[in-house]
């Protein structure tokens, strides 16, 4: 029996709130055990070299040292994606970036381990260094990896949905722009830490700051050659992840192996410098975007080319490569779309998934280009966007199914809140506003490894005490997944969230959930939780309906009571109902699970991009630019996010503001950049800034006021209608800032971050009468493959790859 929402939709203290403010929450580095040893890693000082010899004899004899591990101890490689298993816990024959781990010391304390690291002698033979994607294209030899497409190209792909050249020819205007988005890193406050030990049964347990315990579990079994059933991975609450704790890390295998060898607990806590080396952050991406538009502002098609600097390993790279294109046509209707992407290996820390995974880069280009189009057509940028919106319950040219779309309302909301119409192109020189939009998936439609099983499972156990214990493999990384789980179960069973206890992220006792990535948890875990809780409700209703003189469908569960909908009788307490049901049915437990719907696209590669739902966001940034110094001040940001339903508005608002914060940091200052040491000092490519002091991020003083509007239109595919909020709100901030700067001082900064020196340089060019722009000047010749050609749904396609001339036949 449906009822008004009682728990969800109202601001509520999150279930793990108390533990966080008292210091009681135990993160991985807070764990310790009797007889625990400490591990430290020796990392390569060279960006590219052959490891000729590792001599650890002296280190092994150092007082307090229990074990030294090298690449020889790890013959089996790992990799989060089955197509990119290219990394060893400790490098065996080759190091591929400064910071690649080559040996590990396990000692009685960190001090002894650190001393022993200095006694390990490694002979390296230096190899030529690839410093950028362009260099990687130019120098196919030496290959950084002996797999991939060719030379130093890791992934190379091309898709064309309808004849795009034709669509550009039919346009009144074609915009051809280059954009560059610099890499940046997650910088979670918690440095990665792991503790491995043998449990009392002799099985391996690894407690680790991982976002994806299930994938880590599988990789541990593979690398250590231990049966999966003999391993238990506990994801400790993450002190921030943002994608940085999705990949398994070398350190996790090292402590696990050491615990197996020594039979003692072994812990490692990475230093902040090491966290920069582990990285897996935002890919630097160079983009070329050609877009056709009619005089009245209708988009005719887009040809997007991307070039990704992947760093030294595969990581999530194959997915990242897809994501630099696949979500581009989800906000606006492009009748035809072509997307070519190439990821190149370089001798830098591996890039991977960071909040928004691969999509902030093309979104930046797309939204800045739309601003240019609007200006050229003398249209309001908001109107141009409104005119081209994807319709609800439709397909894109690339066969993604878009269900609910609240983008129109988002745009109207930020236009209204920000006073856009009174400000855009009307503020005094030096001040400006910019608008941009975005979308994000509510969970990837396909698992990282191919399987037909559910993406999330939830088990609920009802105790006679009235407490509700919920088990799920989902991982709390700060986003509030435990609170979502408790809230949904409490709502469905009509109890207070205070009686719900969440047991999560433990592969030894919880059903599989694939992990905290791709904004999938609320939707997938949530749907599984609804199913499990509804099964229990049905079971209890079936028992108590007789006592309540009603039918099962008319039994209401509300505020800790169970009663008949159409009766004024008192009913019974939830606990009494549990007792009655347990007496008749036995122990009360139910499971629920969820797998996303099958995507409509059938061509090879159609598995990346589909999602059960998409969230949408619109954002207006106001800025003040000092033309003498180039200094960019942002006084205020307005943002509207189509969330479907905010399950806990306090947390949802926090996710939005946190996303804006991270986006603004990327827009203004965050960059994972490198420099070459002088030749006499090895010429190595090293981090500019492997420290928090040098890697700039916004402080409380730098952060502008953010006004948040949550647009709620429940999505039928989502639990209680709730869409994602963890990633989407970051995405429009960077282009909105770039567009605001143009509105303020009339210069285009076509790359991120947008720093004062770039603004000044563009202003100088403008003063000289040159193009008032800073950004990439050229796109290299990339040997993209022949595209997979697919007809858009409206050209008679069936979602399969088609012959190119089929288009002509239909048209």
């Amino acid at each position: 029996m449906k009822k008004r929402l009682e728990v969800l939709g109202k601001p509520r203290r999150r279930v793990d709130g108390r533990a966080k403010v008292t210091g009681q929450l135990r993160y991985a580095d807070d764990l310790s055990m009797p007889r625990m040893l400490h591990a430290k890693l020796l990392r390569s000082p060279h960006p590219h070299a052959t490891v000729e010899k590792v001599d650890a004899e002296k280190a092994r004899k150092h007082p307090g040292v229990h074990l030294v591990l090298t690449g020889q101890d790890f013959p089996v490689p790992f990799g989060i994606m089955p197509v990119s298993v290219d990394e060893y816990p400790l490098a065996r024959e080759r190091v591929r970036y400064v910071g690649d781990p080559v040996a590990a010391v396990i000692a009685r304390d960190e001090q002894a381990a650190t001393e022993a690291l200095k006694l390990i002698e490694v002979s390296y033979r230096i190899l030529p260094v690839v410093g950028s994607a362009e260099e990687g294209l130019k120098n196919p030899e030496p290959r950084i990896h002996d797999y991939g497409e060719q030379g130093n190209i890791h992934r190379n792909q091309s898709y064309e949905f309808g004849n795009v050249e034709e669509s550009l020819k039919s346009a009144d205007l074609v915009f051809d722009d280059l954009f560059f988005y610099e890499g940046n890193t997650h910088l979670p406050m918690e440095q990665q830490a792991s503790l491995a030990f043998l449990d009392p049964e002799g099985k391996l347990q690894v407690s680790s700051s991982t976002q994806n315990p299930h994938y880590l579990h599988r990789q541990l079994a593979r690398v250590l050659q231990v049966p999966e059933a003999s391993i238990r991975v506990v994801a400790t609450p993450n002190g921030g992840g943002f994608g940085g704790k999705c990949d398994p890390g070398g350190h996790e295998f090292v402590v696990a192996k050491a615990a197996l060898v020594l039979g003692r607990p072994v812990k490692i806590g990475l230093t902040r410098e090491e966290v920069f080396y582990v990285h897996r952050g935002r890919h630097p991406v160079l983009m070329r975007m050609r877009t056709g538009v009619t005089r009245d502002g209708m988009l005719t098609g887009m040809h997007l080319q991307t070039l990704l600097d992947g760093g030294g390993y595969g990581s999530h790279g194959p997915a990242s490569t897809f994501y630099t294109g696949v979500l581009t046509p989800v906000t606006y209707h492009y009748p035809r779309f072509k997307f070519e992407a190439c990821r190149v290996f370089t001798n830098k820390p591996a890039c991977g998934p960071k909040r928004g995974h691969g999509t902030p880069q093309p979104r930046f280009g797309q939204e800045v280009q739309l601003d240019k189009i609007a200006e050229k057509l003398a249209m309001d940028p908001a109107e141009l966007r409104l005119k081209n919106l994807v319709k609800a319950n439709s397909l894109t040219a690339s066969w993604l199914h878009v269900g609910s779309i609240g983008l129109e309302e988002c745009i109207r909301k930020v236009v209204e809140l920000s006073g856009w119409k009174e400000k855009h192109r009307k503020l005094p020189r030096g001040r400006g506003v910019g608008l941009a939009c975005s979308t994000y998936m509510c969970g990837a439609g396909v698992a990282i490894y191919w399987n037909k099983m559910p993406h999330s499972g939830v088990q609920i156990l009802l105790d006679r005490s009235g407490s509700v214990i919920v088990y799920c493999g989902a991982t709390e990384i700060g986003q509030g997944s435990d609170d979502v789980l408790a809230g949904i179960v409490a709502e469905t069973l009509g109890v207070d969230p205070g009686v719900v206890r969440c047991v999560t992220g433990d592969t030894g006792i919880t059903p599989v959930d694939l992990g905290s990535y791709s904004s999938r948890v609320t939707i997938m875990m949530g749907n599984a939780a609804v199913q499990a809780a509804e099964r229990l409700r049905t079971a209890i209703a079936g028992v108590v309906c007789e006592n309540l003189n009603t039918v099962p469908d008319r039994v209401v569960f509300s505020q800790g009571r169970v009663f008949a909908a159409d009766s004024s009788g008192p009913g019974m307490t939830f606990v009494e109902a549990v007792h009655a049901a347990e007496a008749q049915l036995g122990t009360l437990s139910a499971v629920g699970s969820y797998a996303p719907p099958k995507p409509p696209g059938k061509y090879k590669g159609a598995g990346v991009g589909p999602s059960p739902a998409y969230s949408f966001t619109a954002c207006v940034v106001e800025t003040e630019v000092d033309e003498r110094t180039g200094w960019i001040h942002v006084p205020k940001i307005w943002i509207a996010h189509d969330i479907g339903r905010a399950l806990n508005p306090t947390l949802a608002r926090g996710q939005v503001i946190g996303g804006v914060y991270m986006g603004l940091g990327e827009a203004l200052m965050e960059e994972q950049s490198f420099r070459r040491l002088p030749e006499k000092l090895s010429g190595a490519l090293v981090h500019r800034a492997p420290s928090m002091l040098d890697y700039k991020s916004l402080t409380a003083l730098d952060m502008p006021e953010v006004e948040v509007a949550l647009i709620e239109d429940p999505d039928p595919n989502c639990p209680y209608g709730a869409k994602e909020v963890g990633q989407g709100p970051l995405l429009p901030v960077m282009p909105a800032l770039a567009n605001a700067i143009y509105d303020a001082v009339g210069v285009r900064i076509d790359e991120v971050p947008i720093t004062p020196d770039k603004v000044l340089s563009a202003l100088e060019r403008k003063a000289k009468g040159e193009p008032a722009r800073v950004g990439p000047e050229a796109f290299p010749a990339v040997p993209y493959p022949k595209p997979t050609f697919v007809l858009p749904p409206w050209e008679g396609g069936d979602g399969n790859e088609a012959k190119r001339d089929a288009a002509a036949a239909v048209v």
Partner: protein
Amino acid sequence: MPATVRCALKVNGEEQGVSFPSYKTLLEVLREELGLTGTKHGCELGECGACTVLVDGEPALSCLVLALECEGRSVETIEGVARGPELHPLQAAFADFGGSQCGYCTPGVIMTAKALLERNASPTRQQIKEATAGNLCRCTGYQQIVEAIEGAAARLRSEKAKEAS
């Protein structure tokens, strides 16, 4: 084994003798010798503020302070903030206003905010931002942290007013 020193530390109001290697920082001694893991490592270089504790009532980065230097001084950590079983108004406000997401920076920010509110019962937003600018947070965007501190300040003021009347 490295040589250890013995030192009397007053932590959260309790005097105790602790033995530790002399090179250990206050952060390490709190976490590793006393089991007070509420104070966090974030960088060990004084850049992030996650390890903030109060030494004689003033915020200090415990990763930059040798534990030896704290002999005879009063150290307060997040574990000492609650009022018995009840949360301190700052703790309650951080939990209720969304001031804590992943929670890793939270102990440090709460200690900084506690010192601020002890010397200024009615800080402006700007003063709150200035006081907490040394505590990095990657989750919240700071806005709900500022709101939490404002909320706690209001509650502490009304508590004081009630006591006075």
